[in-house]
């Protein structure tokens, strides 16, 4: 393997050929493997150390890479379909009074068809929109607080009249649909809010009650005056007796005098 060149004899004097010393020329020429080999050549320990010292050190990261969505994902252009769907959503929020968000875990189309039929009888229609479209639309509008509802498979139940009671009964019939929240007359309601809203009496009933409450006194006096005067006088006498039990003897003759 190693071929060594032998020592070179150096003459000190030109004529005498006296050998005063020799220079050891031990140049061991190694004939190892070539530079390009099929196997990985064993590295010199110093080269190993160099490679270990000069390894790549990545910059420190505050959180792992997949933990938060990157900023570049937000700025994607809307394609035509998404723009169309956003327009539809805008129209829905303008036209319809009641917009309920329901989580749709329906397994088959049959259940959905039955539900749609039930709701159609009350004038409620079912709308489907992808969350990717609704969430940015809502966040940029006044309904931004509704945006957290749109996670998972959601469906919109929209209607012009807020028929909450009928909607609740139809939803109770299909157990897979879970009511998440609703926006009725530009007010956001939670599930409990919707239930209490449904328990409220109708508008006409409330108005009638209010009117009757306000005019209660006048209507009562009117009904009293319509009775016979003798009845009225006897009522008054009884009232005075009740008011002044101590002065009962005094009051009664004055009352008799009055009649």
């Amino acid at each position, binding site marked *: 393997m190693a071929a060594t060149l032998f020592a070179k004899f150096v003459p000190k004097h030109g004529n005498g050929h006296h050998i005063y010393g020799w220079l050891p020329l031990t140049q061991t020429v190694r004939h190892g493997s070539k530079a*390009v080999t099929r196997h990985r050549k064993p590295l010199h320990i110093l080269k190993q150390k160099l490679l270990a010292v*000069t390894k790549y050190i990545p910059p420190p990261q505050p959180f792992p890479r997949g933990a938060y969505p990157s900023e570049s994902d937000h700025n994607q252009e809307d394609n035509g379909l998404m723009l169309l769907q956003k327009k539809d959503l805008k129209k829905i929020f303008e036209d319809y009074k009641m917009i309920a968000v329901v989580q749709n875990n329906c397994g088959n189309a049959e259940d959905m068809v039955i539900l749609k039929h039930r709701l159609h009888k009350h004038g409620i229609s079912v709308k489907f929109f992808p969350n990717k479209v609704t969430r940015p639309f809502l966040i940029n509008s006044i309904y931004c607080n509704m945006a957290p509802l749109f996670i998972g498979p959601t469906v919109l139940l929209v209607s012009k009249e807020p028929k909450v009671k009928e909607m609740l009964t139809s939803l109770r019939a299909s157990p897979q649909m879970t009511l998440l929240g609703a926006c009725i007359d530009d007010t956001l309601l939670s599930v409990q809010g919707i239930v209490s809203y449904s328990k409220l009496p109708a508008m006409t009933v409330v108005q009638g009650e209010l009117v009757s409450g306000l005019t209660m006194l006048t209507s009562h006096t009117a009904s009293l005056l319509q009775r016979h005067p003798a009845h009225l006088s006897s009522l008054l006498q009884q009232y005075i007796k009740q008011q002044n039990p101590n002065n009962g003897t005094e009051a009664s003759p004055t009352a008799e005098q009055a009649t």
Partner: protein
Amino acid sequence: MISLIKSAAGGLTGVCRVYGHQQVLSQCCLKTLPAGLKTFQVPPDYSDVFLPSKPKLKFLNKVPNLKKAKKEMKKLRDIQGPAKASNTFINGQYAIVALGGGYLRWGHLEMIRLTINRKMDSKTTFARWRINAPYKPITRKGLGQRMGGGKGAIDHYVTPVRCGRLIIEMGGMVELGEVEHILSEVAKKLPFPAKVMSKESHAEMLKMQAEKEQNNQNPWTFKRIAQGNMMGIRKVLSPFDLHNHGRYSGKFHFPERV
């Protein structure tokens, strides 16, 4: 009502999607409603893709057409280091990129040609060679011969391939997923490690490498120490390490080194 729908369900096979206000649902056909609504991506536009007249890979000769074949020295430096030629995309979108050095023989080239020509759709895709036909003569001595007696006779021809060189380029009105399985089958059988890349992923790889060099937190780099001959390290380094910066050694490539 429900029985009607159930009978309709049994009878009907076709299903379609419905949007917007509906007519009375008593006579409707069943619509499938998927679990989540799919958002559709715009399909890729292939209007600028040009399909050549001969889309398949051409036949490469085993032996070059020479009057007098000269025996050549081993010159293993044609395997060593990164590729300077043929390492960018020209007219295709997807390619097999060599991640190591090696020699390609006629058998390899035939395997590539036959596999790709058989599996690709010539109406929508085309393939191009990015390597030459074998031109470097390799000599062999006969079996059982002793050392000496001159150089052996030419046995076969090879094409040297350096790391980073493109072997095959494919293009056409297809996406990477449609072409990947064909190219990866070929890439597995090559004598050096190879990878299927698209134009974008190739550019991404180069960009990542450059970024790594930029944001390396280690103040000590191979390049700095080798160029400055710190600690007399050039005693154990090769002259090629000066410009390869420790990323190449022989025919091997170390992608994680920076």
